[in-house]
């Protein structure tokens, strides 16, 4: 009886999902309510979690609740701590959730909401969540080893070195593109810039408080900081409205880029308790709170999706990013579907705190489903605003021009009717002077969020507040990620340089510290600056680079997982990781190849460089360049980007070869050759 009831419930879930997909797919000219996207996504998550993740946990991994985890074996109360399942889930989710799932889907909305939704759901179920869970599993079985160490142990030292170099390059690109998102959001916006600038003194105050006045009282200091932040947003509106003060906080893209570069250097050299830690509190809690708030907002408001399900831009002619649906949709939405960077998180602190092996399923697979839902919400937020407004915000000025008149003419020509008045009205509503050409995701998401949240709290009058709240929320946690990431990058540089010049590896040495930090800031700063001055808006160039890099890391992690399954003699189940690994290789290598050798200068760096150097040779200046020197710089940057793509491809191909070799060796014998820590089992009733 119970069994029947059980199946009945799952049948209802499946039918609800199928009905929701039918509504989404059969939409013809009418707007569709966002609730259908939510229902479709949630039913997919439930079914995937209940059936697929259970299959992986029980049949593929054979998780054993009696096998001691590193947290139990090495419990020191500090690094290795057995932690309650729900508490660790929260920790893990906070560690994997960043800006990625908020930006990618917003950019991908140019193809309509349906392609993005389908990829986010399929990607997370079969690739993203599988990767996170597998890496967490492998690391837990190896005393919490990092991804690099696991690659070294299972695939050999050279493979380990190649992975470290790959990770370092990916980190550089991620930090550059994230910083660029912030620059794009703050350019010429005194309100936004003032609010973000205020986070620095607020954080310093909080830092002193937690260090000297009430050490460890995170809760109260965060509430205190939050109140100050809200005041900063409110006061920011007054700053923007005051013609004497507003210019002090109005900056061009390049000025903001330099400020961020300098700030990144200082922030990562200062003691962490002063600036980094308090900003971390604010951004983490604000992030979690806003995600929950947005979910509530969507469910309460039930907004209609204004964006068509599929737009004409699936053919690759879209203004937001170039390239057709395959492969570029799949690299534009990286985080939220599958994110290679999670492989580093899942092999970081979480495996050292898993209380029981069977928790790997909810934490590894479950947390990634939740992150995927964040991506779905971002896609919804981008699709509830008027498509004409969406394209005005996300198209580069080189395409739609510099005035609302030009922009509305161009965009209406694409079939998305919009008037100059509408564009001005939106800008006025959110308290800005212009919303044109703010590609990068953050402003679009902020308009979408303001659109949803003002219907819950505050009405039209609060729209500007909600817009700047959303900008603050994104910029704050992106900047915190950039600071912390710069520190992480510095350690990576020190590790790598230390293999050649020993003293440079000393993390305590001031000279080595400054040198490596300088190197870290300079490397992401270079790409940031290049992105800011890029007339096509930078995101156009950098986001695909980031997407390809991040997906390639996922490819490496999934290949490692595949080899480990082979080494465990689980060949029968190897498709679980092999199929997504091959899919990701196909997508990223195709995208990489097109970025290098496509005939279209819009897609290919080399074709673009050829076009510009040919014109340069004839003494012509091609728009957007304004001088021959700029022409030269564009060509040079194209070559840098092309080399980077080629390097990423080389890394991933090399890893595929390493994986193939080791897998063949493992297949040649009949016993497991995997390098796990020997199993110790819990005794009945006792606790180690």
């Amino acid at each position, binding site marked *: 009886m119970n069994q029947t009831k059980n199946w009945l419930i799952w049948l209802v879930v499946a039918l609800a999902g199928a009905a929701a997909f039918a509504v989404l797919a059969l939409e013809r000219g009418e707007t569709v309510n966002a609730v259908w996207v939510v229902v479709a996504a949630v039913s997919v998550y439930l079914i995937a979690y209940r059936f697929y993740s259970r299959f992986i946990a029980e049949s593929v991994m054979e998780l054993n609740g009696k096998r001691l985890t590193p947290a139990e074996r090495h*419990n*020191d*109360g*500090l*690094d290795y*701590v057995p*932690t*309650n399942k*729900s*508490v*660790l889930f*929260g*920790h893990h989710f*906070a*560690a*994997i*959730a*960043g*800006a*990625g799932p908020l930006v990618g889907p917003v950019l991908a909305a140019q193809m309509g909401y349906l392609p993005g939704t389908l990829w986010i759901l399929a990607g997370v179920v079969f690739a993203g969540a599988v990767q996170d869970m597998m890496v967490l599993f492998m690391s837990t079985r190896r005393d919490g080893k*990092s991804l690099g160490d696991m690659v070294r142990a299972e695939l050999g030292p050279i493979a380990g070195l190649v992975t470290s170099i790959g990770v370092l390059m990916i*980190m550089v690109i*991620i*930090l550059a593109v*994230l910083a660029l998102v912030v620059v794009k959001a703050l350019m010429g916006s005194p309100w936004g810039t003032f609010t973000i600038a205020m986070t620095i003194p607020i954080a310093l105050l909080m830092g002193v408080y937690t260090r000297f006045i009430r*050490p*460890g009282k*995170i*809760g109260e200091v965060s509430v205190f900081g939050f109140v100050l932040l809200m005041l900063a947003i409110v006061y920011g509106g007054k700053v923007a409205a005051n013609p004497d003060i507003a210019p002090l906080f109005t900056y061009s893209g390049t000025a903001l880029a330099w400020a961020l570069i300098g700030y990144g250097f200082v922030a990562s050299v200062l003691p*962490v*308790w002063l600036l*980094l*830690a308090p900003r*971390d*509190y604010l951004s*983490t*809690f604000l992030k*979690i709170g806003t995600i929950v708030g947005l979910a509530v907002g969507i469910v309460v408001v039930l907004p209609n999706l204004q964006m068509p399900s599929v737009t004409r831009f699936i053919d690759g002619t879209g203004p937001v990013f170039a390239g057709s649906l395959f492969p570029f949709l799949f690299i534009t939405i*990286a*985080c939220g579907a599958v*994110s290679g*960077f*999670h492989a*580093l*998180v899942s*092999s*970081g*602190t979480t495996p050292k705190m898993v209380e029981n092996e069977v928790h790997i399923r909810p934490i590894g697979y479950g947390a990634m489903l939740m992150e995927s839902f964040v991506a779905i919400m971002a896609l919804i937020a981008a699709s509830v605003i008027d498509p004409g407004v969406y394209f005005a915000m996300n198209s580069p000025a080189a395409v739609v021009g510099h005035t609302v008149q030009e922009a509305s003419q161009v965009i209406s020509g694409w079939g998305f009717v919009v008037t100059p008045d509408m564009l001005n009205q939106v800008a006025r509503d959110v308290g800005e002077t212009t919303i044109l050409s703010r590609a990068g995701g953050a402003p679009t998401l902020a308009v979408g969020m303001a659109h949803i949240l003002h219907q819950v709290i505050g009405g039209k009058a609060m729209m500007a507040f909600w817009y700047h709240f959303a900008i603050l929320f994104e910029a704050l946690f992106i900047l915190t*990620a*950039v600071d*912390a*990431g710069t*520190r*992480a990058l510095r*350690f990576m540089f020190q590790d790598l340089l230390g293999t050649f010049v020993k003293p440079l590896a000393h*993390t305590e040495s001031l000279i080595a510290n400054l040198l490596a930090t300088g190197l870290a800031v300079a490397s992401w700063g270079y790409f940031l600056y290049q992105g800011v001055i890029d007339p096509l808006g930078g995101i156009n160039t950098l986001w695909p680079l*980031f997407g390809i890099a*991040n997906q390639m890391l996922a490819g490496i992690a999934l290949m490692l997982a595949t080899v480990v399954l082979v080494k465990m003699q689980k060949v029968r189940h190897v498709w679980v990781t092999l199929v997504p690994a091959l899919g990701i290789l196909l997508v990223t290598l195709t995208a990489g190849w097109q970025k290098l050798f496509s005939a279209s200068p819009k897609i290919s760096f080399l074709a673009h460089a050829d076009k510009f150097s040919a014109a340069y040779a004839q003494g012509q200046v091609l728009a957007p360049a304004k001088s021959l020197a700029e022409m030269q710089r564009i060509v040079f940057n194209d070559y840098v980007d092309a080399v980077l793509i080629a390097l990423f491809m080389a890394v991933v191909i090399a890893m595929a070869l390493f994986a193939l070799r080791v897998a063949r060796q493992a297949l040649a014998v009949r016993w497991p050759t995997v390098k796990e820590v020997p199993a110790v089992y819990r005794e009945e009733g006792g606790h180690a």
Partner: protein
Amino acid sequence: MLKLMRQAVATARLMVGVKDYDAYVARRRRFNPDAPVMTRDEFFRACQEARFGKGNGRCPC
């Protein structure tokens, strides 16, 4: 209800890298009641340093 509150606080603190001090002391003193332990403040600082130290991966993206 109280348990739920406590768990929520523990989750929030762990999200920013601060672990459970009482569990740490209990663990250290499990076999030796006089084992040296860090004070609450020292423990907090150690957690802070560790969070921004080497090999603590968080997703910037």
